[in-house]
């Protein structure tokens, strides 16, 4: 086995070759049209676009479909690749959902740390007023990269949990479309590489929202950012198609919709948003892309061709904000709904009690998803849009608190009177609830027009947002990693290290988010490289120092976790089938899960969360066997 | 044999007539709502007869 037989390496080579080929194509076409042959922007755009396909061809994600075009049958291959070590399959196109789930999760963790690195860099810059080591442009590129790389990381983490768990939880052999599933993961890799590559062509300085007119004029880095987001968005769409079809058509016998594990409901609601809203961020970025390359003035009020009278207003940057937020607000529900599902999934296991109000939780996920489509313009209260629109959007935004409140009451109801156990996953679940509470309670202040107007674009928003993301995704994601780690690897993680991680990260995060809100109240604006050191009666630099130290503490916690996972895979104690005494289907089969997850068909024989009561949720084998 | 194709031809005629109506509306008494209504009618015909939208939930039709 050589390096080149590794799918990931072939993919990257394919991407580089296709990049150059795409650039060459532009040069040839321009030369034929009689234009100057080299123009940097079109060359980078076409090169970037073709490079995504080049990667997919190189890694082999399209091979089966290319055979279908020729009418050849391609039976699904099971097991690790022949003649290669078993670990190689994680770096190759593999159709098993458990492998794809791990690929998603690991790439997601890698991006999480990359995004964290950007954050640490510009947080360090912010410790003192003035510019110390990052220039203005680099600072701005870093905040944008921190945002979009983290978003990609979260989408990948969500994809990892959903891909690994949903088929196991509903008793399906695999996902509905295994090839599409593999494509859904692999297209993320060239996409995220393009986003990182944007740094070498000038970066992009508008923050991850990429608002025109700035994004329509800045360096070429914007174009690679747009293309990268396009690829990651495509992954969301094909992934959601796969998850919806799997959930609707592949449940095992007796697994009615209201007997599914609650996490499956959360993923289903998430998939509905991903399926539909993602198109709008793709479209809005594509419109800026063509505005830059072809001069199509969607968002430029000043574009008028020869002999063309300027229309009233012409293009309109506000249109971008409407299209963009139509995805990007529901997107935060894509990030948090699976995490809230994890909280609801784990609490009954560690409280040894039924989940309080199962149907209400299931429906509240759907309700958040639906209401999420009606709130986008609350990001635009001060944008200059029609002021009369602010009131309905304020009400719809406040409405989100109702289904979210349902979840909180259910969690409290589940904990109440339970026999609580506190291993690391449970600690992270409780940490998630505390952090999400901070994020949730600061939401209405920003949803209300009167308080949002002074708070808009301050660090208060940054604090609120990070509390919702950590409470809704990061803490539950880490809980899920610790909780299912024994199922994936067959070994236990180091409990002491896990607890140290929790006790470093949770207080650090509280300090960080409350510190961010404090600087916001002092008058610190978001996305600003430099600030007035006299803000907050001269205390603002001290608060920034504390936030930065807290950020480094969080990073230390994450590094501890990764070390724990790598080390425990070698030396951890054997976990056994069901270390948490869970009733969920995935804990009734061996750890690690074999190639074909279920030795015999799964049957549902009871309610999903009847902990503390006799009986079972699921059984394996024919009805007569037990 | 010919009988199978009859539905398709009828739908085509209906679509052509609706397109004609659309054009007449646009030149004689332009109304956005009316034009959208005709478009929705055309879309319904295509969805039902050409795209067999009902096959999504009927238990028949796995070929």
């Amino acid at each position: 086995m050589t390096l080149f037989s590794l799918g990931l390496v072939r993919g990257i080579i394919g991407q580089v070759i296709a990049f150059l080929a795409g650039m060459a194509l532009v040069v040839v076409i321009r030369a034929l049209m009689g234009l100057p042959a080299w123009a940097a922007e079109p060359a980078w755009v076409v090169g970037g676009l073709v490079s995504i396909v080049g990667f997919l061809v190189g890694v082999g994600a399209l091979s089966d479909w290319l055979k279908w075009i020729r009418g050849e049958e391609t039976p699904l291959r099971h097991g690790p690749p022949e003649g290669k070590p078993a670990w190689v399959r994680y770096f190759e196109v593999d159709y098993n959902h458990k492998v794809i789930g791990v690929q998603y999760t690991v790439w997601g963790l890698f991006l999480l740390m990359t995004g964290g690195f950007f954050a640490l860099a510009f947080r360090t810059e912010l410790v003192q007023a003035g510019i110390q080591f990052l220039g203005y442009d680099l600072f701005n590129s870093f905040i944008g990269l921190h945002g979009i790389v983290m978003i990609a990381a979260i989408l990948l983490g969500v994809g990892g949990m959903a891909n690994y768990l949903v088929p196991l939880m509903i008793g399906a052999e695999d996902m509905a479309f295994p090839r599409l599933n593999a494509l859904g993961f692999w297209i993320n890799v060239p996409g995220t590489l393009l986003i990182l590559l944007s740094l070498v062509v000038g970066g992009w300085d508008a923050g991850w929202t990429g608002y025109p007119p700035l994004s329509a004029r800045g360096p070429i880095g914007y174009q690679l950012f747009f293309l990268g987001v396009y690829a990651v968005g495509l992954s969301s769409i094909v992934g959601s198609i796969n998850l919806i079809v799997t959930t609707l058509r592949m449940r095992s016998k007796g697994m009615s919709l209201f007997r599914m594990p609650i996490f499956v409901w959360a993923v289903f609601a998430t998939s509905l948003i991903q399926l539909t809203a993602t198109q709008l961020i793709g479209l809005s970025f594509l419109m800026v892309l063509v505005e830059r390359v072809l001069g199509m003035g969607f968002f430029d009020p000043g574009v008028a061709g020869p002999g063309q009278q300027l229309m009233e207003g012409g293009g309109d940057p506000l249109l971008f904000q409407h299209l963009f937020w139509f995805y990007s607000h529901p997107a935060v529900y894509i990030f948090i709904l699976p995490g809230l599902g994890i909280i609801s999934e784990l609490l009954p296991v560690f409280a040894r009690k039924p989940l309080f109000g199962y149907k209400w939780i299931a429906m509240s996920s759907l309700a958040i998803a639906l209401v999420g489509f009606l709130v986008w313009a609350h990001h635009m209260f001060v944008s200059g849009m029609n002021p009369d629109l602010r009131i309905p959007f304020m009400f719809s935004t406040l409405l989100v608190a109702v289904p979210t409140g349902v979840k909180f009451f259910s969690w409290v109801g589940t904990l109440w009177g339970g026999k609580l156990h506190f291993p690391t996953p449970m600690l992270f679940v409780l940490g998630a609830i505390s952090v999400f509470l901070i994020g949730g309670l600061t939401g209405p202040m920003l949803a209300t027009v009167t308080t949002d107007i002074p708070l808009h674009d301050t660090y208060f928003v940054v604090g609120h947002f990070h509390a919702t993301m950590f409470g809704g995704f990061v803490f539950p994601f880490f809980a899920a990693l610790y909780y299912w780690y024994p199922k994936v690897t067959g070994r236990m993680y180091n409990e002491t290290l896990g607890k140290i991680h929790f006790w470093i990260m949770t207080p650090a995060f509280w300090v960080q988010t409350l510190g961010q809100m404090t600087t916001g109240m002092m008058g610190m604006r978001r996305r600003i490289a430099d600030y007035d050191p006299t803000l907050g009666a001269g205390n603002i630099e001290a608060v920034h120092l504390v936030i930065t130290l807290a950020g480094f503490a969080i990073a230390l916690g994450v590094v501890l976790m990764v070390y724990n996972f790598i080390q425990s895979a070698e030396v951890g104690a054997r976990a056994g089938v069901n270390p948490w005494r869970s009733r969920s289907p995935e804990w009734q089969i061996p750890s690690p899960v074999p190639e074909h997850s279920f030795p015999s068909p799964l049957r549902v024989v009871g309610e999903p969360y009847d902990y503390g009561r006799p009986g079972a949720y699921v059984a394996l084998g024919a009805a007569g066997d037990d | 044999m010919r009988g199978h194709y009859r539905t398709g031809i009828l739908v085509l005629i209906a679509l052509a007539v609706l397109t004609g109506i659309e054009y007449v509306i646009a030149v004689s008494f332009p109304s956005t709502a009316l034009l959208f209504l005709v478009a929705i009618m055309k879309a319904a015909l295509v969805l039902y007869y050409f795209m067999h939208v009902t096959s999504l939930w009927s238990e028949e039709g796995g070929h």
Partner: protein
Amino acid sequence: MSAVAAHADVEAHVAEADYQERTRRNRLGLWLFFVSELFMFGGLLVARFYLWRENGEIVRPELDQNLGLIITSILLLSSYFMNRAEVAIAHNDRTNFLVSLLITAALGTVFLVGVVVFEWGAHLRPWDGVFGAVLFGMTGMHALHVLSGIILILNVWWLGTKGHFSAEEHWGVEACAIYWHYVDLIWIFFYPALYLIGRAVPA
């Protein structure tokens, strides 16, 4: 249960679902893709009604009405022939199936030429303000789908000549057909939005 029987049980359990079930899954997946795309095309329509306005009144650029009517009719006609191909294969009428597919692809190509050569070749250019931007954005995105549809149809035709597809198993044909109808469906809304709705303004 004997070991052999248990093993056979596992084999049957992990085997791929039968053709009918796979077709149902494929169909649902393709329709979900349509729903997804609907939001993208819907976004373009929103852009059209947001940007093509003067003093709050909906306007449109003056375009060649004859061209619009002709290409719309051609696309509708192609949709009919696509349906004919699908009905034909469902009744094992292979000649009609293959001929109808070719006619559909030919009509699709005529539509594409109508848009790319004649409409784009007329006076408006992509950089001509919002009229040019939205016109080229909408027709361009639609033309991209028409092009992929034509390639799909030709692929199905080629496989058909090699003896693939039957009355019992022709998901490939159905997928291609409903994709083509979907492209037509989008044009049903794009045609009035571009050519008919609003007061014509000299562009």
